[in-house]
């Protein structure tokens, strides 16, 4: 194993205060079972899962509640044993209603008997491994929730020579991945090797930001004596974004609109690797994840190992409740997370944290006209011109925005973070992207019909 600094530095990026100190030394605690678990069928990118249980069914932990709704989709499993009390429509973290299986735990937490640890993974075919990953419902746990098996099945002719394991965790406040690396370095490492075996990647890179020395130490101990590289990244947001990470490690730019495999690279989050270990070696589907509950309004911030479906309110209550009324509740980190209207939503496979910000830390912008300071242009890791795009979209010129590559925006929020006029630049981009996607779909169906 060799350790080195990242050789490439992508342009742009910002340096928000990391605020990880509240939880980065807190060992992960087990979150007790809630009274009711709300397991959403929309926990990943792609088609929603289809519920396959009925009201009143008794389920075991690890039993399939919803099967994959398509190729780009993933099944959802029961987080514990108990009874299905309802199949309802509940708002997701994004606020849009989606099907949801409500489970009342029986407290025994019995595993589904059908789940058995598999044979030694080293002897298994790549195809069989991917099948087990599909069955375990594993999706990218960094935040986007892209079904992992899709990534692991490159089309024929595409070779992936570089596998990058993402331990950057550049979002402020969140420490879930960091704690996982410290506490479960060995299982992450086993998961990584499984992925490598599936892909046959020549080069294996573990990328961690330099503000996590404990994680770097733990991972290098686990990786000792192998040919993998450990790349220490300079702390910068959004270093952990897929395209930026690939650039920082290999110097290759993923082409616009393309997937990382276009440049022969693949990025897996450390959490995903740990889940792959669980699925292949332990035979457990994905039913829990580590969630950082933090922010100034949480009494005792903690890293929790919580079941999928645990209501956010229970997580906060387990951390001693709120100190006062928060100014903002965020699912995920403060740069890309989703603001919540309530604590009703539940943990999903992609919930990396719950952040409760106090009123004084919340930017209550009343935006001003752009003063062309150019900070967003310098900050944009995709090298877009957010100022021009924002003004275009405000004038409802979506076509012009498309011409200036608004679709390449990764919504990292660096522009709006820097903007002294407090312009809602990311919201503008989102609006335009949603509108353009709609138009493109329309055009595609028109062309077909």
């Amino acid at each position: 194993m060799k350790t080195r600094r990242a050789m490439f530095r992508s342009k742009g990026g910002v340096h928000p205060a990391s605020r990880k100190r509240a939880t980065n030394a807190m060992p992960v605690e087990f979150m007790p079972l809630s009274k009711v678990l709300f397991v959403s069928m929309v926990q990943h990118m792609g088609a929603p899962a289809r519920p396959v249980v009925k009201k009143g069914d008794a389920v075991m932990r690890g039993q399939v509640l919803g099967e994959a709704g398509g190729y780009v989709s993933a099944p959802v499993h029961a987080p514990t044993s108990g009874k299905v009390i309802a199949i309802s429509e509940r708002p997701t973290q994004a606020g849009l209603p989606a099907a949801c299986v409500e489970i009342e735990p029986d407290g025994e937490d019995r595993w589904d008997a059908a789940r058995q640890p598999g044979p030694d993974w080293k002897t298994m075919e790549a195809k069989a491994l991917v099948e087990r990953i599909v069955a375990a419902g594993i999706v990218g746990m960094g935040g986007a929730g892209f079904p992992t098996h899709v990534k692991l099945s490159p089309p024929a002719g595409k070779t992936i020579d570089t596998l990058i394991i993402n331990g950057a965790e550049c979002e402020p406040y969140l420490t879930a991945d960091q704690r996982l690396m410290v506490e479960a370095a060995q299982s992450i490492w086993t998961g990584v090797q499984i992925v490598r075996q599936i892909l046959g990647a020549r080069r294996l890179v573990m990328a961690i930001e330099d503000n996590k020395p404990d994680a770097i130490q733990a991972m290098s101990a686990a990786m000792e004596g192998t040919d993998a590289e450990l790349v220490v990244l300079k702390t910068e947001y959004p270093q952990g974004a897929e395209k930026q990470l690939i650039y920082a490690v290999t110097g290759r730019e993923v082409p616009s609109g393309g997937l990382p495999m276009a440049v022969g690279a693949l990025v897996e989050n450390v959490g995903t690797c740990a889940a792959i270990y669980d699925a292949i070696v332990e035979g457990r589907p994905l039913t829990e994840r580590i969630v950082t509950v933090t922010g100034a309004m949480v009494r005792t911030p903690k890293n929790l190992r919580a079941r999928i479906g645990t209501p956010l309110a229970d997580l906060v209550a387990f951390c001693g409740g709120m100190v006062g009324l928060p100014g903002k509740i965020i699912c995920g980190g403060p740069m890309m997370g989703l603001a919540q209207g309530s604590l009703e939503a539940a943990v999903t496979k992609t919930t990396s944290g719950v952040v409760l910000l106090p009123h004084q830390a919340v930017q209550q912008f009343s935006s001003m006209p752009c003063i062309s300071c150019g900070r967003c242009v310098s900050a944009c890791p995709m090298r877009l011109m957010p100022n021009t795009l924002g003004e275009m979209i405000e004038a409802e010129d979506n076509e012009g925005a498309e011409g200036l590559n608004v679709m390449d925006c990764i919504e990292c929020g660096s522009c709006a973070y820097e903007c002294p006029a407090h312009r809602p630049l990311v919201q503008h981009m989102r609006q335009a992207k949603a509108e353009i996607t709609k138009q493109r779909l329309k055009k595609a169906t028109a062309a077909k019909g």
Partner: protein
Amino acid sequence: MNEPVEKTLPIAAKEPTWLASSSPHAHSGDSVRKIMLTVIIALMPALAAAGIFFGWDALRLTGVCIVSCVAAEAATRKLMRRDKGIGDLSAVVTGLLLAFNLPPALPSWMAVVGSIVAIVIAKQFYGGLGYNPFNPALIGRVLLLISFPVAMTTWGPWQILSPAAGVDAITTATPLGLVKTTLGTGQPLPFVFDGDTILQFFMGAKNGCIGEVSVLALLIGGMYLLWRRCISWQVPVFYIGTVAVFATILWLADPTHNYNPLFHILTGGLVLGAFFMATDMVTTPVTKTGLMFFGIGCGVLTMVIRKWGGYPEGVSFAILIMNAFTPLLNRMTRPRVFGHGQKKKQA
């Protein structure tokens, strides 16, 4: 009629306890007001220098300009029913910069006229802060210069430029003006530009607009701005650098009719312009490359006007002309978007 007055919603004071908005939920904490405050602080050394060299006149003009700029801004905003007030401090900055571009003996009412022109015509008529294509303070100055050419070229009391040229001839001229008029009559260069003069010019003992004389004070302010990341280094470096290169070429070609490049850097409004006027965020390009070209363009135009133009000083005109090129520079220097154009990709 039904259109919401605001482009974005302000916070409702009452009811729901917490807020939701699109990400990001963190902010650098910088604001337009803070940037303007930084610029004001950075201008303080130059104001102090102006006070030392021109005394009461400097303070009078500065006060008049700031007060009338702020008043004009408040009045126009109210009249135009625009909601946001003068809290962003941009009017104060405009007032300060305008005052710094006026000669010390200018009557106060002319300063008021200039302030009103700067705020009302150059700024609010275009839509207010952020929409003005030209630097308001410079528009104010240029309008005054065109309207009242005599008052705007009547300078202060300094008599140090050259004992040889006769006191009367130089009391009412800036070094640049003196050079232009002297060379225009076919005479040789009017004074010797050597160590002592350089030091005096650097410290500020010369005729000129109240804020532009002390290069030292301006440099202190400029360094502060650079340190606070309020301006990027491209503009001042390329602006002054271009002037230096241009002046060196002229000087090497014909040393009998041109001073050495330091003369061009230390006289006129170059340093004030390069650090405070050509770096105005609103009217300059947003990309670093754009700023570089902006600086070079300003430098070339300044020297062209100084050498061959009708006016002895060209900083104001150069910056205003380059302001007009800002949208073009923004267009031309768009960065290559990540993942685009490395290899020609099929659509």
